[in-house]
């Protein structure tokens, strides 16, 4: 009897082992490991925020394969425009990823013109397509049907040298029609054109990072040696996007820079908020990585969030408007969802699209429960609806208990509700010393108000007792002295 029971127990144990092992095998369908940086700048595992849903190649759409696609853009109406550089065409998809039309050229002055290695495109609210036609040194502006509106060619300006080559790479357009062009070999900043195509000037120059070792070396060198050295020139921008308020987000690929992402206000100053624990620059720690992130594209997602695409590790980093790193996804590889040579990132509804030049396809990522909850909570916080955000933050914490931003979010909401003492714990978990200090100041004042009476009573009582004992001791001593003197 005992033997059969034992046997059953062993069998049960074996089966339970099997079941335990069976579950996690199917738990993570992502071909990459998601992580996030904690307060101590360690990369800690995190739930996946986005998962690859599908890829779209030329064959899937029923046209010839893409060839070195260069850029992708989603118009405000939701149409997806893929710039297929190698085939000199623009492929237009509807929001459901069905082919609408292909624009492979346009009529100009009675003859058919085509693109030559175009680098970037942008579509504005009126469905006008702006193509940076790099090989032809011009920016082509087409209407939604592919009819030519006008072109922007090499600008005539006193501040440009005569040998200046205008080779637009990427561009973005604000709501009044000003065109911001990132051009090749232009160190002065982003070129700005008005709606008629006249050159206005540059915005947002990258500062030269001074290397003092190099500086001293240069002082010690002879003129001939100096002539052979590399020049200290500012780095070029790699890409640009525009947010609904008209601020230009721009990335540069300077490997030494701690500010590779800039948010330029109309006068060209960088106004990006950097309130997170660390620099807004993609990967911050490289133990097994080849080095700092090389940010080649930026996409403003709305509600203050923006994503940047890193070409070193082929990952996407998303930040909120205060500069907190929200989540990281993507990676190098050949599976669906990992990337070979990513060139552009876009957003279509909830989905993120990453264009992969190496695999000639467009990868569609969809948010997981974790990712969409984070997006929701960040959006609510951005709009100032912190009380609503709290419930979502609590759900996020159930999915990832290491999510510092959620603790800070809950803490801030508790602070609004004047629950200062509870907020303290959340700020400590989120390592937000500034907010902790605010909460603690209020808590301390409350405590003092509440207990000041008691405190004062005790203090006065103590002083009185002390005084009385001293008097008593003195009196006794005097009595002693008197007695010895024989007065009593």
């Amino acid at each position, binding site marked *: 009897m005992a033997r059969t029971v034992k046997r059953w127990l062993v069998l049960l144990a074996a089966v339970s082992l099997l079941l335990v092992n069976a579950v996690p095998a199917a738990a993570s369908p992502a071909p990459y490991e998601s992580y996030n940086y904690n307060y*101590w700048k360690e990369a800690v595992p995190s739930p996946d925020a986005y998962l690859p849903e599908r890829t779209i190649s030329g064959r899937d759409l029923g046209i010839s394969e893409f060839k070195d696609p260069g850029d992708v853009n989603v118009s405000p109406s939701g149409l997806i425009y893929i710039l297929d550089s190698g085939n000199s065409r623009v492929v237009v998809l509807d929001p459901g990823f069905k082919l609408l039309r292909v624009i492979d050229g346009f009529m100009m002055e009675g003859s058919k013109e085509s693109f030559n290695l175009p680098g970037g495109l942008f579509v504005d609210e009126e469905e006008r397509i702006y193509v940076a036609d790099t090989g032809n040194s011009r920016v082509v502006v087409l209407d939604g049907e592919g009819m030519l509106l006008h072109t922007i060619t090499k600008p005539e300006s006193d501040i440009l040298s005569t040998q200046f080559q205008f080779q637009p790479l990427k561009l973005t357009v604000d709501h009044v029609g000003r065109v911001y062009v990132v051009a090749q070999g232009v160190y002065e900043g982003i070129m700005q054109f008005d709606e008629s195509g006249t050159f206005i000037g540059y915005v947002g120059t990258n500062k030269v990072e001074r290397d003092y070792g190099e500086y001293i070396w240069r002082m010690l060198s002879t003129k001939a040696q100096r002539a052979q050295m590399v020049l200290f020139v500012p780095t070029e921008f790699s890409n640009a996007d525009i947010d609904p308020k008209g601020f230009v987000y721009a990335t540069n690929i300077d490997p030494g820079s701690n500010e590779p992402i800039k948010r330029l206000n109309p006068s060209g100053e960088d106004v990006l908020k950097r309130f997170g624990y660390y620099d807004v620059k993609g990967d911050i720690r490289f133990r097994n990585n080849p080095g700092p992130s090389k940010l080649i594209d930026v996409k403003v997602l709305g509600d203050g969030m923006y994503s940047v695409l890193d070409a070193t590790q082929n990952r996407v980093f998303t930040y909120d408007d205060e500069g907190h790193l929200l989540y990281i996804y993507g990676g190098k590889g050949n599976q669906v969802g990992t990337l070979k040579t990513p060139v552009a990132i876009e957003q279509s509804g909830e989905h993120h699209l990453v264009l992969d030049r190496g695999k000639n396809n467009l990868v569609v990522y969809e948010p997981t429960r974790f990712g969409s909850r984070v997006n929701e909570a960040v959006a609510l916080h951005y709009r100032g609806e912190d009380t609503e955000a709290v419930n979502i933050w609590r759900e996020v914490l159930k999915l990832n208990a290491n999510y510092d931003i959620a603790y800070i979010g809950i803490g801030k909401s508790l602070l609004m509700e004047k629950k200062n003492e509870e907020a303290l714990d959340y700020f*400590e978990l989120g390592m937000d*010393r*500034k907010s*902790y*200090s*605010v909460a*603690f*100041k209020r808590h*301390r004042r409350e405590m003092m108000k509440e207990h000041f009476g008691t405190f004062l009573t005790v203090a006065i009582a103590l002083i009185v007792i002390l005084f009385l004992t001293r008097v008593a001791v003195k009196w006794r001593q005097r009595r002693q002295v008197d007695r010895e003197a024989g007065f009593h």
Partner: protein
Amino acid sequence: MKQDFIKFPLHLIFHPIAAFWDLKSDNRGRLLVAFAALALTIVMMILQKQYAGFLVNYIDPRTINSIIEIATVAVPFFLWCTANWAVTTLMEGEGKFREIVLATGYSLIPVILIYAPMIVISRFMVQEETAFYYLFNSIAFFWFVLLLFIGTMTVHQYTVFKTIVTMVLTLIVMGIIVFLGALVFSMLQQLYEFGYNIYRELIFRT
């Protein structure tokens, strides 16, 4: 008892020039007090890392290790005493090794006296007030250095300039001792490896 263990150390930190002389000439110093000061300093260092308020405590709690804390205070302490003794022996210092240990140990007293209340007060500070925490910690440090300076000067009967030179030299000698120690350790390790390898060769050859 009370005179030697509490009153004199407290008198010393406020009147160092006279008190260090008393410590040397009248034999007022107690080794027990010096070692107690060292032990309490270590305790204060540990307590500060563990219990200082959140706003001033930037220590990753996972990295706190009491053994390492003990080593980071006690090793430099004895290294300083040894190096100082070695230097002053060559530089006609009048201090004995015991007096050097006493002077160094007694100098640590302000650190204890300032750290202890600051740990408690830091828990009730807000961000604007943390400046005071850092200020008092710096005061503790400079007070310690000043006492060490006066102590060295009095114990060895040096001039101000000679004391400064001696202290700098002591720091250099500390470095040399560490370097030599590491060298000897690494050589011993290599010797051991060598012997062990020969042993293994012999074992496996037969």
